[in-house]
């Protein structure tokens, strides 16, 4: 019991350290790259005095190091400050973009699970037959198409040929939840496709392995039906072992959604991140980077914990990240 608490404490320390490092990287990056918020906000026709005046008004005249340290102090208290260029609290800005990014990630994950499990189960029954070969090859090819090339082709197909999808028609969930889901379907699918291929490949291999295992043979000799064996034994077993893969897929999905929302013109976190960079908005950027880091670390952490629970080798070794 005591060791659990201790390892949890270590995890939390590691997490805080990671967060601190990430924010320190952001600070270093910002002190290196040229450009400043006031100049970007005022544009080229503004005079030097105007830029200087705005700089003072925004509190940008203090050195970045000073601003960073005070930001860190506030962040430790849970206050990420106000975005310089938007003039809104960073937390609010991030929260306003979450429905897109998280919604897309979740829908993509559902696509991945709902499609890759049955596909893998289907293929693993008779590995090497025609359906298996066809689906496996399709999987390989899907995996090889760059997500944004895929997005472009799908936009082309759906909006031009079928007229059932319009890019950029995003509806906020508060306005119309149904329309919100519909507007995220195609982008989510674009993120999901390569990941479906990846998960499918993994699941197929692990299901084939399990179906050759002793317990399946025993179950068969007890006269259990194939379907029952599949549902009761093979799928749950491979699901457990696929936790690591799925947690990796999930963090990939999060990264992928940042690119795809750009192609589909959706107001998500990725675009907020890019505008924070292009406006040299330090508090906003730090906030977003911190937030994304938190999610990523959390995912890795979960996958480590779960695989440690399953795999005795890692559990008895140094199960830490």
């Amino acid at each position, binding site marked *: 019991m005591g060791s659990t608490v201790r390892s949890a404490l270590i995890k939390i320390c590691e997490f805080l350290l990671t967060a601190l490092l990430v924010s320190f990287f952001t600070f270093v990056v910002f002190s290196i790259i*040229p450009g400043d918020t006031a100049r*970007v*906000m005022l544009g080229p026709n503004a005079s030097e005095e105007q830029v200087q005046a705005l700089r003072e008004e925004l509190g940008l005249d203090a050195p970045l190091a000073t601003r960073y340290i005070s930001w860190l102090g506030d962040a430790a208290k849970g206050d990420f400050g106000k975005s310089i260029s938007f003039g809104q609290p960073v937390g609010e800005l991030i929260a*306003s*973009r979450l429905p897109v990014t998280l919604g897309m990630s979740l829908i993509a994950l559902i696509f991945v699970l709902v499609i890759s499990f049955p596909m893998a189960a289907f293929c693993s029954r008779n590995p090497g037959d025609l359906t298996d070969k066809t689906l496996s090859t399709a999987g390989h090819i899907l995996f090889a198409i760059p997500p944004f090339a895929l997005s472009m082709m799908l*936009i082309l197909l759906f909006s031009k040929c079928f007229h059932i999808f319009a890019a950029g028609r995003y509806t906020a969930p508060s306005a119309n939840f149904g329309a919100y889901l519909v507007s995220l379907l195609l982008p989510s699918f674009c993120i999901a496709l390569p990941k479906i291929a990846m998960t499918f490949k993994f699941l197929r291999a692990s299901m084939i392995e399990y179906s050759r295992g002793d317990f399946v043979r025993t179950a068969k000799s007890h006269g259990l039906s194939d379907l029952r064996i599949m549902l009761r034994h093979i799928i749950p077993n491979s699901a457990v072992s696929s936790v690591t893969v799925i947690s990796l897929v999930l963090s990939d999905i999060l990264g992928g959604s940042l690119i795809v929302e750009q192609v589909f*013109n959706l107001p998500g976190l990725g675009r907020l991140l890019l505008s924070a960079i292009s406006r040299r908005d330090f508090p906003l950027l730090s906030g977003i980077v911190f937030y994304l880091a938190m999610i990523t670390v959390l995912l890795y952490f979960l996958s480590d914990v779960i695989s440690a629970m399953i795999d005795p080798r890692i559990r008895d070794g140094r199960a830490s990240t």
Partner: protein
Amino acid sequence: MHNSSWKKILAGALTLALSFSAASCTQNNQGEGGEVYGGEAVVGITQEPMIFDPHTVEAAGDKEILFNVYEGLYKYDSTGTLNPCLATDVVISDDASQYTFTIREGVTFHDGSELDAGDVVYSLNRAAELMPELSFIENVTDNGDNTVTVTLATPNSEMLSYFTTAIIPEDSGDTIGETRIGTGPFVFTSYEAGIGIVLTRNENYWNPELPYLDQVTFKICADMDSGFLELQSGAIDIFPYLTTDKTAQLDPSQFDVLELGSNMVQGLFLNNAVAPFDDVRVRQAMNYAIDRDEIVSLIMDGAGLPLTTAMSPVMGEAYDTSLDGTYNQDIEQAQALLAEAGYADGFDMTITVPSNYLVHVNTAVALADQLSAVGINATIEQVDWATWLDRVYAGRDYESTVICLTSDYAPYDVINRYISTGDNNFINYSNPNVDEIITNLPLTLDEGERISMYRELLGYMTEDAASVYIQDPYSICAVNNRLTGYELYPMYVQDMSTVRLATAE
């Protein structure tokens, strides 16, 4: 005098009333001339709006929206003519040192308070303090008879265009960026970062015939491509700053496409302080080496006006048409000039371009290709916009760059950046004759004399080949034909007041 807490309550009540009326007003009314009143329009924009204080706003993308919210004593129309707006007329004293404006009566701000001379005095003083281009204002006095007299520090008869600056309620300066209260045809209702701006009809606009629409949304698109898809899908009605290859894809039965010279100056700007561009022969050679018509048709599908000098012909009389064609492509001449300057075998150069402007990147690619014919080996270096502003524009640490210069619709604003001591003279151009003209122009009262001075100045700049001027790109706008009445301005303006539904919906 206004009371600010009252104003807030009033503003709140007004917004509430407006949003209520916008929601309930589904039926379109017809004006006397048969024009349809009511309805909504969505305009696509590709830049995130940033500043809503009319006296500190600088970005063209912000100004063009605020044109609908704030108004000045005078206001441009789509032909570039100045018309009385919040003033009904102006009297300029004989020595051009005093401008006396008569304030229009019966104008109310969006918060319901009435416009008076006090508001005008306050606004002009505030603007003079915050806007360097208005620092010529020495003092503003309320004459008590609903007129206001502005005294200039130095006599200047050409300053009327600067009185388009916004008039805001007295003492509202500290909050104007949030309250956004003006007198314009539309009321600023909401702004959501990354999403857009909503303007609603000003029911008490001083011109009772305008505006037509109940609501206008400026919707932020990630870039032109995604915005264009939204235009086609009908999510956006009006999309300015399109390119011809885009408009060629539009269904002519569904969209109207408008084109106009935009008073912008695109060029390959050369840092005159850096070798080899400090040699006038090199700059001239580069001017001869390129084919402007080819670039315009390559990059713009012909939708641009080739330029030989620093000013666009859309500026009217100040432009000297005799300069046209000075630098028509002449490879031999270019090679001769290069040889004379000691670069017979050409040289290596870097073009630094802001990566967010595809047009400039493509222009740089075309220029590099053309310059290679005379042995000039140009490497392209893309930087992001903030870096460009910092390093190239403010820092002047570059060799050459492709960019579009924008200015107010006033010839003086186009050329005053070339004074050798100028803050914005990022090409480090220096010519004593030009300096003298720029200094004397505001002091010259005679209109004809001023025009000849502009022409003389352009002559010097062309001879010096200050940079490689390329084109004034047409401003191209597509309008869904469910709307009518949209007008293109030769400046950065999206005037929504005249836009209306083509037929009642």
